[in-house]
């Protein structure tokens, strides 16, 4: 006898704005946690070098740009 709880029958996926915002929120939380880990390593072990400061600026600058692009894409959806 087949277990009804284990049957997945997906024929279509419907994407709406709520789905996109939820995906964005989940991704943002995960990204923030991982960024925090990186930031901790740079601050704690980076010895305050110029390379680490440049890496921080580039990392957060480019991240901000793509997050804003993501938000713009959902807004224009």
């Amino acid at each position: 006898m087949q277990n009804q709880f284990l049957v997945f029958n997906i024929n279509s996926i419907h994407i709406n704005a709520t789905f996109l915002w939820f995906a964005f929120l989940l991704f943002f939380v995960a990204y923030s946690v991982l960024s925090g880990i990186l930031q901790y390593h740079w601050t704690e072990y980076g010895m305050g070098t110029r390379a680490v400061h440049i890496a921080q600026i580039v990392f957060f600058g480019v991240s901000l740009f793509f997050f804003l692009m993501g938000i713009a894409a959902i807004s224009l959806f």
Partner: protein
Amino acid sequence: MLQLDSDEQVVLEVRKHWIVFVSQAIFLCFAAIIPPFFLTVLSTLLPIQITTEGSFVAVAVFLYCLWILTLWISFFFYWTDYYLDVWYVTEKRIIDVEQKGIFSRNVSSIRFDKIQDINVEVRGVVATFLNYGNVEVQTASETSGSFIMKNASRPELIRQVVFSQHNKQSERPQPVHIVSQHGTEHATKL
């Protein structure tokens, strides 16, 4: 943060050659162009119909942004692993900071008077042209063993700097401890 003595300065920072980092990170560049092909293949193979309330282009741009951000943070994890795996050659010792991935870190140091020999191995055409190779510092210490940096940048320079610091250290007058019969200790420099 790594703690140095007040009169101690870093003479040389030794890292792996940049080619090591680039060869690790280069597949991220290929990964960045995968999604368009992936979507094309997926739409033909999977019998799932994807419908949207609004613009499909906006959804594609949104998903692509998330993909690029994933690759971007992966790139910096690679870079952090590369950058924090380092030797600091100071005026007194070599500090070996071994970063294995992001959550494993081992710091050990060796004084110059414990160094017995340094082996430099440059193997292959690419390593010769780009000037990188394996550097092994052999020590007299039973606990430390030897320090090995694989694919280190400018290995000959490392050997020269370590030997020059080793020589300076051995020429420097060392304090001699004289213990009197009463048990009191005096330190004097010869």
